């Protein structure tokens, strides 16, 4: 088991800033399509988790003497909003004690419309939160029922309202490709979140991941994703949102800095069960199970369960794939400065077969067109060694 988290290695003394991710491993109930780790709340569990989180930070500090400053922050899960105000007070306290947050930076929190509250909003307001990402999923009750969500569309609208009223930047997550979903229903949801004042919209195609209930027994009548996605691209751009990544649309300047770090190869440090960290050349993951996470940190060990060194063709193709997810694409000069001109050539050769209406080529680099983004998975496959 590696002794320390890779985001910290080599860099710790250089005191470079990282992006911080906190995984809150609790949900009120498990959605049948979700593959992220979470567990049910039970008395004492949250306290144990918070204690272990604090221990993890202390262990990192002990291993590296100085922790890097924090650039962007993202508190996700799970469902961060299932923690009550007192737990949040404790969480904020732990983070403030553990890290130095560079001022003026983005801090995002994921919120579930079913559990978001005015108390939490005001706590966040007092702290550093700038951005709230609401898991709307759909603004149609029949979709929400099918998805097993704990809230209805009215509740989502209410949640978005209190977020914007508090002055946060609002991001809304929507799912497409749902059973029985048509353009009309999809449009209703898109229109609804725009009307609620979201300045950022993430659209995710319903994925049937193995290991989830729907992955094992897919629901009937799944809608074809392509036309729905195409509609989102068209409609959101008409409404002033710019697509800056496969699944992400934002009004001017409102793109999520934290997420862009993932795609452009920045360093990030993940805390909590199942959280991932990466320093650009080494990636690692914490143990997935909460109990295990608590007991390992309790023993005074870092709870890392997996790590891999990224190098050679794997690193190059992975970076190319991630870059092509974004509207900036692969920037030739930056890419060859990082990986060498030979690597850039290799990537460009692999992209040769792709027709020009899918892949735009310019002197500065290559990027996917709108149509290209729709078939991204097939293009990424071609980039593998």
């Amino acid at each position, binding site marked *: 088991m590696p002794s320390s988290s890779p985001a910290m290695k080599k860099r710790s003394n250089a005191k470079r800033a990282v992006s911080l991710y906190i995984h809150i491993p609790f949900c009120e109930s498990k959605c049948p399509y979700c593959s992220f780790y979470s567990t049910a709340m039970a008395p004492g569990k949250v306290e144990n988790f918070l204690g272990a989180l604090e221990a993890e930070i202390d262990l990192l500090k002990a291993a590296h003497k100085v922790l890097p400053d924090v650039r962007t922050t993202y508190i996700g899960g799970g469902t961060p909003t299932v923690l009550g105000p007192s737990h949040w007070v404790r969480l904020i306290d732990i983070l403030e004690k553990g890290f130095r947050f560079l001022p003026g930076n983005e801090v995002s929190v994921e919120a579930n419309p079913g559990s978001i509250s005015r108390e939490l909003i005001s706590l966040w307001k007092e702290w550093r939160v700038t951005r709230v990402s609401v898991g709307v999923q759909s603004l149609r009750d029949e979709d929400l029922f099918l998805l097993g969500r704990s809230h209805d569309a009215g509740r989502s609208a209410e949640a978005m309202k209190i977020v914007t009223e508090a002055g946060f930047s609002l991001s809304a997550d929507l799912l497409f490709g749902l059973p029985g979903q048509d353009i009309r229903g999809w449009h209703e949801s898109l229109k609804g979140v725009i009307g609620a004042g979201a300045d950022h919209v993430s659209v995710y195609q319903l994925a049937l991941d193995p290991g989830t209930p729907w992955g094992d027994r897919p629901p009937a009548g799944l809608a074809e994703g392509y036309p729905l996605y195409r509609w989102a691209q068209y409609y959101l751009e008409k409404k002033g949102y710019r697509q800056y990544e*496969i699944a992400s649309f934002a009004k001017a300047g409102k793109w999520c800095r934290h997420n862009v770090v993932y795609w452009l190869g920045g360093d990030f440090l993940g805390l909590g069960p199942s959280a991932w960290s990466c320093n650009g050349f080494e990636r690692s993951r914490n143990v997935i199970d909460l109990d295990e996470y608590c007991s390992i940190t309790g023993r005074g060990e870092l709870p890392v369960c997996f790590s891999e060194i990224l190098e050679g063709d794997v690193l190059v193709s992975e970076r190319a*794939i991630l870059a092509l997810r974004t509207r900036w694409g692969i920037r030739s000069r930056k890419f060859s400065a990082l990986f060498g001109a030979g690597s850039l050539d290799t990537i460009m050769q692999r992209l040769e077969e792709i027709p020009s209406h899918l892949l735009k080529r310019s002197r500065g680099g290559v990027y996917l067109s709108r149509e290209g*983004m729709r*078939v991204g998975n*097939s293009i*990424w496959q071609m980039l593998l060694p």
Partner: protein
Amino acid sequence: MSVPMERIRNFCIIAHVDHGKSTLADRLLEATTTVSARDMREQILDTLDLERERGITIKLVPVQMKYRGIDGLDYVLNLIDTPGHVDFTYEVSRSLAACEGALLIVDAAQGVEAQTVANAYLAVDHGLEIIPVINKIDLPSAQPEQAAREIEEVVGLDCSDVLLASAKEGKGIKEILEAVIKKVPPPSGERDMPLQALIFDSIYNNYRGVICYIRVTNGTVRTGDMITFMATRRSFQVEEIGVFCPDMRPVDELGPGEVGYLIGNIKTVEEARVGDTVTSSRNPAIAPLPGYRKVKPVVFCGFYPIERDEYPQLRDALEKLQMNDSAIFFEPETSTALGFGFRCGFLGLLHMEIARERLNREFGVDLVATAPNVVYHFRDMSGSLIEAHRPSDFPEASMIEEVLEPFIKITGFVPSEYVGKVMQLCQDRRGVFVGMDYITPQRARIVYELPLAEFIIDFHDRLKSVTRGFASIDYEHAGFRPSNLVKVDILIGGEPVDAFCFVCHVDRAFNRGQEAVRKLKEIIPRQLFEVSLQAAIGKRVIVRQNVKPLRKDVLAKCYGGDITRKRKLLEKQKEGKKRMKQIGRISLPQEAFLAFLKSGDEEEE
């Protein structure tokens, strides 16, 4: 040999498939205690697992039974089992030539079927004494009188003292054995004449080399003799002769009328061909026994290994199979789509299926077969006749003066309510009506002539489905006839794909082209650009369809932790696409080719 020639009886059993031939053979072996109860198992004479599973007989195993008749005398009864299928008509004819009599088995519930008649006539042609037996009288639906009437009317045999039996329950077995003694004439032949023995089958054995199944007509053969095969002109020293009981038991000598085996350091079955005559090298016979011919394959297809690097294994397996079965023909062939493989020729579809299954089972070779085709003859502008074994042998249409294709004459026994449907099926397959008569008010005999090519596609399945399995059919070859045939190319993105092209009648080209394009459209993976699929005769495109570019994909989210997982998923998908074949700028996975060729198979089942 302990009995004189007049107490030898050589006979075979002929029957329609499923009328109980193998079970009856089992009972005869039991009744004569040729096989002890301890060693008995079902279908004991069928040596291949495949035969037992399919309930059909492919290879013939002769067996010698000793039987004491009610007259108190000891007899030797040689039972020569025969394959009932038309693919093996020649082999059947050689087995019949080794006999003096035949038991004609008819199912008491089913009555006379197509193969009953075909095989009975074949036996009559060979001058055999035929003993009709009505089997399965234990069945609740048995109608022995009706079956007897059909035998009299359709086959023309006297059924006034027809034998009734139930092989399953062991009823009537003794009566059958007595009838064999009484009715089948003993063999005739001269001990003192030069040796003449018929090879009615030969098999390859890993330890012993080729084992010839022979029937001595004149003269004698002993261990150590120098012998010559008259057609192949090969000579060997006899290492061992013997009889089947049913295991091999060596004897000193085989004389006139006797049936047994011969081993003599013979390397391949090609050297000991079915129908050839064995004679003495020192004192050869003046002439061979009549009826020998070299069998020629009539149905061809390509065999390709699924794993491309298994080509050498496939070649070895085919060579070994050919040592066993000289009727199989093969030569190397290259396909741009499927790589290296072999063009293989067979006596018929069943023969092809068996070869394919044996390659898989006995030699462990996983292979894919291209669509079968018949042999075509064409005359070019210079007037010379050329034989084509594969669609790609077809020259350009402008070079062909005349194309000929093999025809067959089929005889079907059809319940009267299905007559119309069967006739429609035959018409659809370019059949020419020859005749029809009613055997009974409920059943008709229909005779058509139709191209073999139409027959091998899926005629049996269509027949089965339009008659709910109540019709039986048999066929014989009827020679080559001129036909308006064309080669249809299948093009993907403008590039012809050899594995998919086929030959068919011009009137069917459109439908079959459409069918092929439709099938292809289903299986080719969506590409990033539009792909055209075409069927064309020469330069003339007859079917065109475009496959819309890919537009269905899961655009999953991808954040910090997803990256590793995503990459592994992509790598896995990519691995599956490794064996891609480039056709123009289109990548097709091998699976697509296999799916295309296999979907045809499913229709056949």
